[in-house]
C-alpha cells in the first residue's frame, strides 16, 4: 500500500494542473484591464503630423465618439493591422484619429504614403509622453473614446477582423444603446 502513495500524490497534482489549465482557458492572462476604462481620457494637446504648427487637443475632439489608434512607422504589427484600419474600421463611421507614437515625422509620412492613410486626423507624440498618460504598452493600440471624452474600450495589439466583430462592434453597440 505504501508504494502507492507517490502515485496517489501525483494524481492529486494532476487534478490541480488540470484545474489550472481549465482556469486559464476561462481567464485571459494577457488581458490587463486598463485602469483608464470608463475614466476620462487624459488631456493632451499635440501637434498634427501634417502641420506641426497646428495643435489638436482633447477638447476639440469632444462632441462625438472617435477611435484613437497608436501607430508608428517602426512598428511591424502596425503593418498587419493597417488593412483593417483602411477597410472595416473606416466603415464603422467614426472618426479615426491616429497618434504617431515615438516616431520621426518624415518617416511616418513616408510610411503612410506607402501603406495608405486611413486617419482623419493625425497627432504626433514624439517623446511618448502622451503615450505614458494613456498607458500605452507599445504600438499598436486602439482606444474608443466617447462624446464626453471618456475611454470606453481599449485594445492592445493589432486589430484583426475577429477583434472588430468580437469586441469593437459590441462596444459601439453599447455606446449607441446608451445614447438612444
Amino acid at each position, binding site marked *: 500500500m505504501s*508504494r*502507492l502513495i*507517490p*502515485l496517489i500524490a*501525483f*494524481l492529486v*497534482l*494532476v487534478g*490541480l*494542473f*488540470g*484545474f*489550472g*489549465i481549465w*482556469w*486559464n*482557458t476561462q481567464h485571459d*492572462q494577457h488581458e490587463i484591464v486598463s485602469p483608464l476604462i470608463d475614466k476620462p481620457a487624459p488631456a493632451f494637446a499635440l501637434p498634427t503630423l501634417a502641420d506641426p504648427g497646428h495643435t489638436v487637443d482633447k477638447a476639440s475632439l469632444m462632441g462625438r465618439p472617435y477611435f484613437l489608434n497608436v501607430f*508608428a512607422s*517602426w*512598428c*511591424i504589427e502596425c*503593418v498587419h493591422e493597417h488593412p483593417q484600419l483602411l477597410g472595416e474600421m473606416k466603415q464603422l463611421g467614426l472618426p479615426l484619429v491616429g497618434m504617431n507614437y*515615438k516616431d520621426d515625422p518624415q518617416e511616418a509620412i513616408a510610411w503612410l504614403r506607402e501603406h495608405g492613410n486611413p486617419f482623419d486626423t493625425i497627432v504626433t507624440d514624439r*517623446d511618448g*509622453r502622451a503615450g505614458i498618460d494613456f498607458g500605452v504598452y*507599445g*504600438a499598436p493600440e486602439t482606444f474608443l473614446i466617447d462624446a464626453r471624452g471618456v475611454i470606453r474600450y481599449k485594445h492592445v495589439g493589432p486589430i484583426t477582423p475577429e477583434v472588430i466583430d468580437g469586441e469593437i462592434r459590441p462596444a459601439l453597440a453599447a455606446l449607441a444603446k446608451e445614447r438612444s
Partner: protein
Amino acid sequence: MIPELGQFALILALLLALAQGVLPIVGAWRGNGALMAVARPAAAGQAVFVFGAMAILIHAFLAFDFSVAYVADNSNLALPWYYRITAVWGAHEGSMLLWVFILNVWSLALAAFSRHLPEPFVSRVLGVLGLIGVGFLAFILFTSNPFLRELPMPADGGDLNPVLQDPGMTFHPPVLYMGYVGFSVAFAFSIAALLGGELEQAWVRWARPWTNIAWAFLTMGIVAGSWWAYAELGWGGWWFWDPVENASFMPWLVGVALIHAQAVTEKRGSLPAWTVLLSLFAFSLSLLGTFLVRSGVLTSVHAFASDPRRGLYILGFLIVVIGGSLLLYAIRAPKVATGKPFAALSRETGIMVANLLFTTAAAMVLLGTLFPLIGDAFNLGRVSVGPPYFGFLFVLLMAPAVLLLPFGPYLRWGHAEGRHLTAMALRAGVAAIVCAIAAMWFVDGKLRAIAGVAGAVWVGAGTLAYVVKRWREMPAGRRYPAEMAGMLVAHAGIAIFLIGVMLSESLSTERDVRLAPGQTETVGRLQFRFEGVRETAGPNWQADEGVVVVLRDGDTIATLHPQKRTYSRGQVQSESSIDPGLFRDIYVALGEPMDAAHAEGAWAVRLYHKPFVRWIWLGGLFMMLGGFLAAGERRFRAKKAPAAAVAKESVA
C-alpha cells in the same frame, strides 16, 4: 524548401524514436537478440535527423529566412549572428527542439559508452529514452512546429526578447537542459531495472556516473541562470524564487538526494526502493519544470508560451510518463527492494537524514510554487508566495544539513564509532567559534554574517580535516579516488557558497539616489561620481549610457557604464555595469531620467556594494566540479564490482 526538410527530418526522427522505444523493449522481454540490436542504430538514426533539424533551424536564423514564422518572431536583420543562434532557443518551439536535441546527445552517449553492460538492460534503457523522445517529438510536430511558414514573408522580423540578449543567456538554456534531460538517463536506468526485475544492485553502479554528470550540468545551468539574473535584471539580486527558477531548483534538490542515495545502494545494497523512487522523482520534476514553464499554468517573468492545447498535451504526457512509472514502481518495487539493515549511527543513517531534508526542501519549494494555483482552486483569491516563505523554510531545512555535513565522511558504513566524530566536531567547532569571534570585528556585529562565517568554517574545517586524515592514513595513490575527491570538492563548495550568501546578504549596501552630472554619492568608503549620460548604439539598440567613476579614498578604482537600452522594437532594457572582484562587486544600474525630456540632466541611479557576492557562484562551480570529478570514478566503469574493492570501501 530547406525548412520543409527540417520538418521532414523531425518526422523521420519520430518514426525512428518509435522503433527505438518499442522494438528493443519487446526484444528484451522476449529474449530476442535481433530486436534488441535495433536499439543502437535506431538511437543513432534518430540523433542524425534531430541534429539535422537543429542545424536547419540554425541555418534559417543565420540566413534571415523570415518565411519561417518562428524566425520572423524571434530575430530581425539587425540582430547580431551570435544572438541569432541563441534565438533558436529563445522561445517555445525552439527550446522544445533543444530539449529533444539534448535528449539525443544523451542517448548517443549512452549508446556509445554502454558496451560493458548486459544487452537486455541497455536495450531497455535506450528503449525508455526512445519513448521519451516520441513524446517530445510528437509534441513538437503536433503543437509547436518551429518550421511553420508564414506567408507572405515579412520583410523584417520581430526581435529576440531583449532580456535574453546577454552573453549569460547564450549558454544558460543548453546547460540547464543538459541537466534536466540528463536525469532522463537515471530515470531510464530505474525503469529498466523495474522492468527487468534486476535483483543485483549493479545497475545503480552503472547509473551513478550519468546521474552525477547530469546533476553537475544542472548545477552549472542554475549558476549561469543566477549569474544572468544578477547581471541582467538590474536589481542586484541573484535568486528570486521565481516559478521558473524553482522549476530547475526542485530537480536539483532531489538530484542531491539521489546521488547520495545511489552511493548507499551501490555500496551497501540498502535503500534500493528509495533510490528508484528518487530517480523517478528527479526526472518527474524535470518534466514538471518543463510543464510549468511551457503550459502557462503559472505565469512568471520567464513564461513565453501559454497555449491551453500545449498545456493539455504536456499534462497528458506527464500522466503517461510519471503516472506510468509510479504505477510500475508500485507493482514492481517489492521485487527489487531487499534492503540491508544498518545501525543507527552509520553513514547510511547520515545520508538518509540528509535525503529527507533535501526531499522535504524540494516538496516545500513545490508547494510554494504551486500555491497560487491551489489558491485559485479553492477560491482563496490571488495568493502569491514570495521570498519570505521560501527564505525562512529553506534556511530552516538546510541548517541541520549544514550542521551534519562535516560528519558525513567520518561516518562508517554499516556501523560508525562515536570517537572519530567527537574529535572532528571538536576541531571544526573550535575553528568555527574562533573565526566567528574574529569576524565580529569586521562585520560590525551583524548576526547573519557571523552565522555564515561560523557555518562555512564548520563545513570547511571539517572537510579539510578529513582531507588531512586521508593524507596521513592512506598510502599514496589511494588517498583520493575520484569519487571521494568529488565529494570533498563539492562539500568545500558548500562552505564557499555559505560565505557568499550570508556575507553578501547581510553586508551589502544598496542606494537609490538622484544624481546630477558632476554630483558625488558616498557609499561606505566608496565615492560614486556621476559624469552624466551620453548616447551610444549597438547593432540593434540605442542607449543612454551613464558614466560613473568609482573612487576609493580619492583614487579612481573603476569607471562604470550602465546603460538604458531601447531595442529596435521599442522594448527598454536596463543594462547594469559591474566592477567584479573576488571580495566585492561594485554594481551600478541606471534608473530613469528625472525629467524625461532632459536625458542630459539628473538620473535615478542605483548603486550597490556587494561583498563576497561572487562566492555564491564560485561555491556553485565547486559543487559542479565535484559532480564531474565523482563521475570519473574508475569503479563505475567495471562490469562487475571486484569483491575486494567493495569490502575495502566498507572499511574506509
